[in-house]
């Protein structure tokens, strides 16, 4: 028997087909449910058996999708198809009775063909689309600055005295319009605070209604903290030099789903530019850690870290801004957190006092803080309410104890006084002027408001707003702790005239003292000496010594415990792999990181960012964004990001509106109260084209655009105000769309339908045919026998 004959016989064997089906069953079971195996000789012990996903083990490192596209699976399916075709052709004659089995086998072959097409062409990912961005323009400054309309987003535009620091302070997705014609209609409203050297105001923008843009000014008292500029000054816009509008935030990319088939990527760009260039990162695992050197991770015992070196080159791509730089990846952590360890620096290390504090409330709430006195960013916490300072002398310490003071000098009268600041609680205008020098001279002041630790143009400054009285009149003055910023604001018209340099007749200096911190930890002058200043409800702080392990009770049921103090601390930073049982199950790749080596720069860990946003101003809530800046040996600066591969949508997508439909009683935070999510999308195939009419995408109702299907995938839930998030969020500010193609689904469907028809035929028509044929044969036989006289 020839080999060909043997093979043809094999493929027309039903036994072979059964064997293949059994293998398929085993392969699918292992890939999907995993394996269970004993780890203990006593097999009846409850913990003796472990369940694990075999495909995620190191030798495989496969997602479900990858396991079911691996060559053994493809081979198995191919063999089954060949077996079915050969057997059907060779062994099942195409007759009416066999039509069913022919149809079943044909249907399954058609389904396989459709599936090969479908899975071969499959791309699937997601695209976040934010609702709006804010476009800022300032007279006299070229170009515009854009920022996302998202709570807390900040930007600075303009220069010098014309510099505007803006911050989105409130977003209301359902602001009730109170204008004629649209009274009571909900609209998307964004309120932005604007801080200039001279003043602070708010501007409210309404999506789709630029005519309703208006400014809000600080109001007259606590009952009315803000008032409409239109009412106070008669004009809706108090500073026409600053122009702001809302625009669609177009999305042109979608990011491939990494848990479908691994699609890691690095993104690079020259520092200061906004366009990312994607470099695919092939070969990086998904489930298992790879560490090339123990020095790369922070573990308690470096000897226990198992090393599994790896080196993946990530070469430049076409049009790469760094065509000469090949990046390498030599480490991957599936689930880790970057932490810093404080290690004692030794006697020769520089003075760097660092404390760890636990603050406990009487309700059992507890927060741990680590403060470093000499680190600008880490010296304060909780918006400046908690602070650490280092002093080199008792005099400096005394300074911290002092309340806020002002120094007023009138050179003409030879007056130079330092006085404590008393900020009036209610109506400042009713306060009498505090005389400076001889009251008869006519100099005096009154404080209207104090605002400490204000962010001004990226810096922090404290400001005192006061009226200064001179013999020639009253001047409104903003006195900054940084004297260079101090300005006079000509009185009247609600302070709308441009601020001017302060009148030199009266010099005022503002010394905020202990600042606004309620608690200040002070190290020094002796390096072992640590004191705590508490200024609860009092302008003057009270100091007391504190030691490691000691605690101090404070008002409002708070207790401060000092858990560590290191005067010469050195900070070592690095990732700590999180033990498996402490990992959040559905965190997916959110806490993964890759170890990057860029030639000429120090290696670093890059945390995973799900999307390559333009910059932090465009990062969406709940979607971490961790780009890093690297300086190369030749001085060039590179921004680098670890994320997923992305593909162009072939169109721009914008989110006109997002609607949450709820059951009776509205959304309460419980998922059971949600009825549906709907994104109203607009498409634009080229930047110069107009946006399309809104199209609705909701659950179970996708839309197709240029070959891609758009699905409602994720939403932006409202978040209540909490200690972690003192502002909260009204939510509904963006949508995440699932994006995918679906080529070959009609072939797949046709295959299924043919198979169903075949099964019905084989099971319910064929027996009838056979029975009829048997009866007919019996009848014929009977007739024959009757004719031959055997039967009567």
């Amino acid at each position, binding site marked *: 028997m020839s080999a060909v004959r043997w093979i043809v016989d094999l493929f027309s064997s039903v036994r072979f087909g059964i064997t293949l*089906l059994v293998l398929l069953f085993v392969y699918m079971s292992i890939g999907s449910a995993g394996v269970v195996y004993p780890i203990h000789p006593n097999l009846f012990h409850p913990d003796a058996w472990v369940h694990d996903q075999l495909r995620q083990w190191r030798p495989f490192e496969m997602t479900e999708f990858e396991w079911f596209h691996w060559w053994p699976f493809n081979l198995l399916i191919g063999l089954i198809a060949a077996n079915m075709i050969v057997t059907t052709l060779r062994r099942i004659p195409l007759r009416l009775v066999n039509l069913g089995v022919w149809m079943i086998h044909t249907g399954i072959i058609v389904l396989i063909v459709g599936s090969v097409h479908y899975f071969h062409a499959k791309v699937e990912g997601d695209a976040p689309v934010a609702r709006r961005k804010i476009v800022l323009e300032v007279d006299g400054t070229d170009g515009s600055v854009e920022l996302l309309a998202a709570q807390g987003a900040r930007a600075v535009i303009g220069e010098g005295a014309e510099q505007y620091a803006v911050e989105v302070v409130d977003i209301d997705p359902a602001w009730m319009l109170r204008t004629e014609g649209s009274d009571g209609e909900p609209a998307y409203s964004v309120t932005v605070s604007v801080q200039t050297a001279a003043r602070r105001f708010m501007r409210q923008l309404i999506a789709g209604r630029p005519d309703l843009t208006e400014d809000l000014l600080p109001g007259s008292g606590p009952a009315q903290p803000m008032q409409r500029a239109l009412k106070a000054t008669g004009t809706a816009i108090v500073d026409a030099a600053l122009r702001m509008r809302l625009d669609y935030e177009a999305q042109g990319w979608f990011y491939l789903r990494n848990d479908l088939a691994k699609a890691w990527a690095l993104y690079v760009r020259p520092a200061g530019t906004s366009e990312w260039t994607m470099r695919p990162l092939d070969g990086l695992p998904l489930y298992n850690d790879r560490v090339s050197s123990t020095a790369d991770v922070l573990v308690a015992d470096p000897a226990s870290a198992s090393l599994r070196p790896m080196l993946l080159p990530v070469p430049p791509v076409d049009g790469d801004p760094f065509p000469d730089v090949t990046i390498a990846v030599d480490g991957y952590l599936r689930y880790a957190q970057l932490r810093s360890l404080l290690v004692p620096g030794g006697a020769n290390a520089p003075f760097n006092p660092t404390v760890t504090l636990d603050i406990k409330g009487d309700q059992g709430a507890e927060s741990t803080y680590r403060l470093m006195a000499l680190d600008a960013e880490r010296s304060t916490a909780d918006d400046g309410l908690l602070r650490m300072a280092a002093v080199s002398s008792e005099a400096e310490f005394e300074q911290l104890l002092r309340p806020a003071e002002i120094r007023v000098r009138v050179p003409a009268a030879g007056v130079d006084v330092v006085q404590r600041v008393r900020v009036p609680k209610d109506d400042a205008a009713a306060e009498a002027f505090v005389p400076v020098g001889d009251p008869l001279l006519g100099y005096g002041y009154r404080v209207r408001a104090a605002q400490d630790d204000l962010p001004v143009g990226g810096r922090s400054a404290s400001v005192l707003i006061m009226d200064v009285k001179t013999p020639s009149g009253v001047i409104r003055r903003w006195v900054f702790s940084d004297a260079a910023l101090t300005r006079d604001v000509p009185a009247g018209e609600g302070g709308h005239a441009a601020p001017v340099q302060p009148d030199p007749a009266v010099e005022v200096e503002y010394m905020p003292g202990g600042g606004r911190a309620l608690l200040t930890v002070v190290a020094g002058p002796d390096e072992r000496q640590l004191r705590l200043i508490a200024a609860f409800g009092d302008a003057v702080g009270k100091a007391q010594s504190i030691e490691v392990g000691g605690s101090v009770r404070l008002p409002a049921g708070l207790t401060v415990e000092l858990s560590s103090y290191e005067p010469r601390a050195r900070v070592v930073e690095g990732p700590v792999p999180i033990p498996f049982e402490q990992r959040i199950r559905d965190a997916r790749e959110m806490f993964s990181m890759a170890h990057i080596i860029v030639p000429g720069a120090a290696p670093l860990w890059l945390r995973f960012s799900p999307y390559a946003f333009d910059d932090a101003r465009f990062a969406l809530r709940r979607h971490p964004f961790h780009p890093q800046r690297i300086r190369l040996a030749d001085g060039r600066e590179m921004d680098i990001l670890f994320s997923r591969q992305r593909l162009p949508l072939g169109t721009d997508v914008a989110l006109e509106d997002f609607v949450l439909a709820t059951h009776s009683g509205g959304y309460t935070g419980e998922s059971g*109260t949600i009825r549906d999510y709907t994104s109203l999308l607009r498409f634009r195939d080229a930047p110069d084209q107009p946006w399309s009419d809104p199209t609705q995408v909701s659950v179970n109702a996708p839309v197709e655009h240029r070959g891609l299907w758009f*699905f409602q995938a994720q939403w932006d839930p409202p978040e209540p105000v909490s200690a972690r998030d003192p502002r909260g969020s009204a939510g509904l500010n963006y949508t995440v769309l699932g994006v995918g193609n679906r080529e070959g689904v009609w072939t797949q469907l046709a295959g299924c339908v043919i198979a169903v028809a075949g099964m019905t035929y084989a099971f319910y028509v064929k*027996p*009838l045919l056979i029975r009829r044929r048997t009866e007919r044969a019996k009848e014929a036989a009977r007739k024959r026998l009757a004719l031959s006289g055997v039967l009567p």
Partner: protein
Amino acid sequence: MIRRGMRAICCAFVVLLGGAGEIRTAESAPAGASFEQSVDLQPLAELAVQSGGRIKSLGSFAQGEMGFISGPRLIHGQSSLFTYFDLLIRPEAYADADVIYVKGGSVRQRIADAVLREDPSLQERMRAFQSSGLISGALLGRDGVAAVIEQMQGDLLRTAKVMDAVRGAQMLMQTDALLRGLRIVPPAPADERQRWHSISEVMLLAADPGAAKASGKEVAPIAGLDVGLQQQCAQHWRAMVEAWIDGDAPRVNASARALAAMVPTLNPAASPDPTRLRWEAWYFANGNLSWIWLVYALSVILLLLAVVYRWPRAKSAGLVVFAVAFLLQTVALLLRWWISARFPNSNMFEAVTTSAWFGGCAAVILEVALRKRAVAGLVALASGFASAVALMSAHFLPVQLNAQIGNMMPVLHDVWLYIHTNVIIFSYCLIFMAAVSAGLYLAYRALGGKRVHASVGGVATLSSEGMGGFRSERTGEVLDGVTMLLMKLSFVLLWAGIAMGAIWADHSWGRPWGWDPKEVFALNTFVVFAVLVHVRYRALDKGLWTALLAVVGAAVMLFNWIVINFVITGLHSYA
């Protein structure tokens, strides 16, 4: 020999049923039992309350909330609504009462060990805890125990979920949480889409606003609702609470009746149909009618007797009892459909019970069509067994198969929920039923039955006559014929159901097939049946192979339903 063996199966089944009845043990009655017995909360149980985006009866609401606290256990044998009010009004009585349910033996063991380390005298109580799972908040709050709990909370893989449930129960037991949950005051007519108000928002309204203002305890009434009615509701509520504290049942009953009559009048348009609420309260108070399993079990016993003893009267009686059980189950399904305002197939409880009901439908149709054939009674036997198992699961595993009616997830609002899910659960029930007849065939063979198989199956069985009465050598043939009849039906339905699921997934998730574990194991079940069809074609001992593979197919189907759903969760976890 065969008859004796089959008899043994019959007996074993009866013993199994008897054993199941023993699972529930009586709890010792508390001292205040007489108060509980003389309090009549029925009027309040039928009051409407808003919870989780639904308007339900207070009775079913309390049952659901107490389920979060005490799991499947009733505290001191009291009704859930009584315990809810008692927890609210007399929290001190529950501070050290064992009312918090802890799931899982190993977790209970660790907690019990921690308690006993602190206080070895609690041996007896901890033994009770380990069997019932109930423990008090005071014991959980002890230092040593709290440390163990914190540790278990950190283990996200194994114990965090159980601990979260315990924390949730403790939060829910707080007086303000219990009070906040009582959203029985309808919103004003102007904002009917708004949330209902909690009784706490009106309960402090004084009858005499002037005096309240003078004493500085003024509370603003809810705008848009009649202030006088609100004041009266507040009065009735306060009177009920005072009477409750005094343990004065007649006064409690009078106030409860008055309150229940008054609250709906605040906004009659917002309050739902009282008949529907009454039936909802009744449905839940009667354990979702899952006791129907007993009727099914009786029919199974009779039909088994008919198979074993070839006793025509037992068969007739069994079919009658089966018909009654099916009728009752149909009533239960229709009742649930009516009170939830949607076809019941969108959570685990509904999927299991509705699946069994579909099997019942198939059995009724087939039994009518095959009433003169040898297979008569066997399809009903298989279906009766499937329904008894399904309803027993619902009855004895109320935690896993939570019967509470909630809103469906947005993704389930699609016509394919009714097409795909119903076809799939129907096929699953048929698979289970085929395994029942296959199991009987295997028992028949194990006891020395002949190596036979049905030469006809499927639709041919319907038309083949002359197999009336059981002859022992034909028992195997008939059982094999029933297996094939059910298997073929499920084969087509399963394939069609999977394809329909793909159609739904294609427009819902963006992919017809995503290798989700549930999809893969549905396909695996189909592969087993494909193997069965081809093995039957080739094998010499067709009957044995068919029966074995039918049982394997059912095992894979159950694995998909139980293990995949509860252990290896995927996209299909809506239950």
